[in-house]
């Protein structure tokens, strides 16, 4: 029996541009089970990034509720939300977002530093991550000394170092060439195979079709929800 890991009901998000208000998301209902691989697709400006930000607790919806692992996270305080981001969610960005003055190893360690994990344990986990992601001999390189693929591998290592339940990737291959992008996607998919829920935002149809489930968002509305193999999802509780 699979319970819903992520459950959105009636999520709406408004943006105010001058006098007019734009509905970035309208009435989104979504139910995601643990370990799913989802591609969120749609034209630019459709609201797919906004959805990702709400899923990642970087943004609060204007209405609707968001249950993460059975807990209503929309009502949490900012400090508690930060804690959920730290422990349960990993982000991968299109532009990598590495801290330029820190080395690869330090960038990977950053979430653990923020979470206050002891240095000895940090060093151990960073060493393992560097080995796992083939960055052994790049540990002391700063981002400007790394290739695009290496940078994104560092970013993925950073996103997974806290062993999150969900990885949110916003156009993870957008700044990479096809071969490197393929490599990064395989890396993300291998994480998904180990049980991590993977949600990728992309406007690339080929990339999206790799996912077992595709969400199509247009004008802030969920137009289509296709699955390749049928996966059960518990109804609203």
């Amino acid at each position: 029996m699979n319970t819903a890991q992520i459950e959105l009901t009636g999520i709406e998000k408004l943006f105010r541009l001058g006098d007019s208000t734009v509905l970035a998301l309208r009435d989104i209902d979504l139910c995601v089970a643990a370990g799913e691989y989802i591609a969120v697709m749609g034209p630019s400006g459709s609201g797919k990034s906004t959805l990702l930000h709400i899923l990642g607790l970087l943004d609060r919806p204007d209405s609707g509720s968001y249950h993460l692992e059975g807990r209503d996270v929309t009502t949490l305080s900012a400090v508690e939300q930060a804690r959920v981001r730290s422990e349960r969610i990993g982000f991968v960005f299109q532009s990598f977002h590495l801290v330029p003055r820190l080395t690869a190893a330090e960038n990977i360690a950053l979430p653990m530093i923020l979470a206050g994990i002891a240095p000895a344990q940090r060093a151990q986990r960073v060493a393992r991550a560097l080995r796992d992601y083939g960055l052994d001999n790049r540990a002391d390189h700063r981002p400007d000394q790394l290739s695009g693929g290496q940078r994104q591998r560092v970013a993925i290592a950073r996103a997974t170092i806290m062993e999150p339940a969900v990885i949110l990737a916003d156009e993870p291959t957008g700044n990479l060439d096809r071969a490197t992008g393929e490599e990064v996607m395989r890396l993300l998919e291998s994480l998904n195979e180990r049980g991590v829920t993977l949600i990728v935002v992309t406007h690339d149809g080929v990339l999206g079709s790799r996912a077992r489930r595709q969400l199509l968002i247009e004008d802030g509305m969920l137009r289509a929800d296709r699955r390749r193999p049928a996966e059960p999802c518990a109804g609203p509780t």
Partner: protein
Amino acid sequence: MRRPDLIRFARDAAAGNPLRTFLLVLAMAIGVGAVVVLTALGDGARRYVLDEFSSIGSNLVIVLPGRSQTGGFNPANAITSTPRDLTIDDAQALLRASAVHRAAPLAVGTSEISHAGRLREVTVAGTTAEFIEVRRLSLAQGRFLSPGDWRRAAPEAVIGAKIRDEMFGQQPALGQLVRVGDRRVRIVGVLAASGQGLGMNTDELVLVPVALAQTMFNSNTLFRILVEATSREAIEPASAQVGEIIRLRHEGEQDVTIITQDAVLATFDRVLGTLTLAVAGIAAISLAVAGILVMNVMLVSVTQRTSEVGLLKALGASDATIRNAFLCEAAILSVAGALLGFLVGHAGAALIRLFYPAFPAYPPDWAVLAALATALATGTLFGVLPARRAARLDAVLALSRR
């Protein structure tokens, strides 16, 4: 976030922009350095004056002829405005006072000293054997003026170290006959070089018996009477007794001014202490300026690192963590600046002492502590606003900034 990690993170962030960090540290260092150097100057001036005053003797009461007027015009003064002269008899009479330990009359004038074709203008001070004790002077060679009857004009002189060097060079001075004005006197002693002495430099002084000086200048008045009280506590009674004796001797008129060394010292101490404080206050303005600079630079830093702040939030940093990181950075910069300024200030004070050895330019401890504390406080205080701005950044907007 653990404290060592927070400090390391802030330090790395500061080191990430060396020029910005350098300028900020420099501004703070100039502020602290200015306080240290300026208070060193102010306090040095205070100590210099106090040392000068202390060097003229201890437990001293000085009697000057004439009354210093502090009140308004008094018709009585119009009639008896000419003060009576102070005489040797007056000085001798003071010895009868119980609180007076010693007294030395002083008659001063300028004259010429000549020996073996060398001639020099000098200040001649006529006094008695007690002078050396009252003024706490010491001799380099020979003896001081012979004790005994103050009215005996023995033809002898004691000269200052500089006079000795200029008149005799390498030749022995003791026992030599020199001409002072129109008198021939024998040199019986040479004063040890003292270097300083308020108003009158004893190195360039020729001391002769007071009676001799008075005949030399054809006058029987005294310039000063120096009175040494029996103890520090006796200064006030001595001053009162001296005033009373002089008043009785001058037909009931208080026509002398009596200065106690303590009163003068206290006044100078107060005046120059206030000066030091004022100077420190002026220097502290530069610290406030440095504080505003901290704020400015930190605000720029927050703007430049907006996307980093967004990232930190995405990675699970709470607002408090981000605020602390920026505050910590401001504090580190302030500490670094304050320490550098501390060193620069002390180096500056040491340089002043090197070039003016007589000037004790040591910054007072309170000023150094206050400067360091102010630097830290302003730096951190002005860091609060940028830190709060960073903490309040919207994560989504911050992340979208490149």
